[in-house]
Each structure stands twice: as structure tokens, then as C-alpha cells.
């Protein structure tokens, strides 16, 4: 049965064999990248473990930052390529990402500041 009140946007989500080849190539490149990042993360952990560096040392702090940056890179590739949010309209992309990111930054700020304050009291 044909319905004219429903606009099926997904019907347009088709592509040719040639486009498919390009998309598959991109998928494999991203796969290699994600695997390499994971190997690097584990390798860094094996070479410079936290307990050898000291949990409060500057070296461990920079490794932590390095991990967080790599995690965000991985997350970016998964969201934008695998979930192809990067190919959707900008309006959808920002509706999904911006409120979430703002809220999480706020939540982390408020919770971690509070956590450190409690730590300072318990430690004294």
C-alpha cells in the first residue's frame, strides 16, 4: 500500500557499487587507525606503568592526558564514520553532540571539584 503522508527519507540512502568501494576503503582505513591507537595505548601502559612512575608524577599526568586525547580521537572516528553522523545534516549533528558535550563538561567540572575538596578534608 502506498502512503503519501509518510516521507521515507531512508529510501534515498542508496549508493552505487563505485560509491560503495570508496566507502569501504574509508572503513578499512578507520579500522586500521582504531586498532593502532588501541595498541599504542596498551603499549604505553606496559612501558610506563602508573606504579613505576608514581600516581602523582608529572609523567603519569601527561600519559593520562595522552590517553584521554587518544580516546576522544577514537570516539570521534566511531561517531563520525561508523555511525556516519559526519554525513548527516549539520543541524542533526549539532543537536546530538553539542548539548551532550556541554552537559558532560559541566558534570565533570562540578563532580571532580567536589571530589577533590572531599579528598582534601579526608586527607587532613
Amino acid at each position, binding site marked *: 500500500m502506498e502512503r503519501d503522508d509518510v516521507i521515507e527519507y*531512508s529510501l534515498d540512502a542508496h549508493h552505487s557499487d563505485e560509491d560503495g568501494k570508496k566507502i569501504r576503503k574509508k572503513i578499512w582505513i578507520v579500522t586500521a587507525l582504531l586498532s593502532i591507537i588501541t595498541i599504542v595505548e596498551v603499549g604505553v601502559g606496559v612501558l610506563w606503568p602508573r606504579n613505576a612512575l608514581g600516581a602523582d608524577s608529572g609523567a603519569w599526568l601527561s600519559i593520562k592526558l595522552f590517553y584521554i586525547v587518544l580516546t576522544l580521537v577514537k570516539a570521534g572516528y566511531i561517531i563520525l564514520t561508523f555511525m556516519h553522523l559526519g554525513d548527516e545534516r549539520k543541524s542533526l549533528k549539532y543537536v546530538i553532540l553539542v548539548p551532550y558535550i556541554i552537559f558532560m563538561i559541566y558534570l565533570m567540572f562540578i563532580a571532580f571539584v567536589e571530589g577533590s575538596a572531599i579528598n582534601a578534608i579526608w586527607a587532613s
Partner: protein
Amino acid sequence: MAGHATKQMDAATLWGGNESPFSVSYGKMMMWFFLVSDALTFGGLLVAYGTIRYTYTGIWPSGEEVFHHFPLAGEAHLPLLYVAFMTFILIVSSVTMVLGVEAGHRMDKKGVIKWLALTIVGGFIFLGSQVWEWSHFIHGSEYGKITMADGSVMKAHYDHGTHEFKGFEVVQDGSKYKIGEEYEELHGDHAVALYKSIEENEPYRIVKGANLYENEYGPSHYGQFFFFITGFHGFHVFSGVIINILVLLMVIKGTMHKRGHYEMVEKTGLYWHFVDLVWVFVFTFFYLV
């Protein structure tokens, strides 16, 4: 991907009605909204974990030391290798999923079946790995964690080859023993005798493995967050596998082909990638950092 979303349209047409301003179907948009709300749950759990870590004054367990076992490798010290393997499995199953979605866009039924089936296999391997990891975590090590008479908490050190007890390390301050300081009586023969006497006379002071109340790796919160975060994630993987199986059956039956598009595969794909995405964050914040 090619399709409606990449079509050039001026703002007046796009926002003037009779047209989805986001150029996505209702189902896909709702899947995105669900994923945002689910991401808030996981974000809340990880932030809660971080907050507890910030408040804790002792030494927080290091993932490299807690998770260094590999199936069939015995006591070999292989830090995080198995968790890395699990991460890799999940990434690969995410790749097979996205290849299935791509095949769907070409109306390639056989391709969708092949990639979706492989995705399900990846999901089962991950779940199995998690079962192994949980059982190892619950089972624990040979000597465990010891609470001393002065209230301090010690971790047992032992030779991974000969299984011989070597000494204590302070992980939480007591009235006598403090973190980071060396005490002669906590090493060598004296320590072995001390451990034996505790084992015989006050076995309740030794904790081995983990349950919801206490664990040998660190504070009780550590085990609780481990069970809750990886458990909640594992539950997501499990339901993802079930949904994937249902969609695979529909694809095999030809439901999608008759419908003229494979959007259902795309929507379950979004969920499956999300599960991978969450694991990337769990891997960093629970295991690595």
C-alpha cells in the same frame, strides 16, 4: 553516505514544512535520541566513578595489575592484554556491522547476511571474554589483601613463577604503617610468619577475589563500579546481539528487500556502534588511567 542528507536545499525549503529539517526518518532520529539518553547514563556512571576516585585518599588499584591474566597463560604477567583483545573484538565487530550497513545501501542481501552474522559472532566472543574476566576477578589471586591489626591495608606480593609469598605493601594508611614507607618486618621470613599466623588465627582479615561488599584489589567501590559499569555495558552488548539476531532473521526472510531499503540494519547498527563507543571510554577510564 550518499542520500537525502547530502542533498543541497535552501533553508526556506528545509524549514518550511513538509520536509524533515534533519533529513532523517522518524525511526533513525529516535534511535539517536535514545543513544544520547543512554550516553548520559554511561557518562553519569563514569563521572561517578571518577568522583569516588578523587575523594579516595589511599592508592587506587591500577588496571595493569588487576587485569594481567590471559586464558591458558597461568600466572604470566600480561598487563591489559586480554582487555585489549576484547576492545579489538568489539572494534572488529563494529567494522563488520558498518560493512553490513554499506551492503544494505547497495541492496546486497547476501552481503548484509554475511556481515551481520559475523557481527553476531563478534558479540558472542566479547560476551564470553567478559564471563572469563568476571570469573577471574571474582576468584582473585593466591594471597589476597590483608587488613593489619593497626587498621592499615596491605597487598600481598608473591613470586608469579614459584607462587612464593614475598612481602606486604601498604595500600592504605593505618596508625602504624603508612603508604610509601619501608618497614623491615614486612619483608622476608618475618612477613611470611606474620602472614601464616593471620591465615591460621584470623582468616577473616584476608580478602581474596571480589564480591559486592569487598574485594582484594582496592576499596569496595572499585569492585562495585567494576561490576556495575562492565555489567551494564555487557547487558547492552547482550541485548545488541539479540536485536542483531532478530534483524538477521528478518533479512534472511527477505523482509527488508521487499521493503525496498535496509534502514533497520542501519538503526541496529547505530546501537551496536554505540556499544563499541561506550567500551572505548570504559577501557580508558576504568582500565588504563
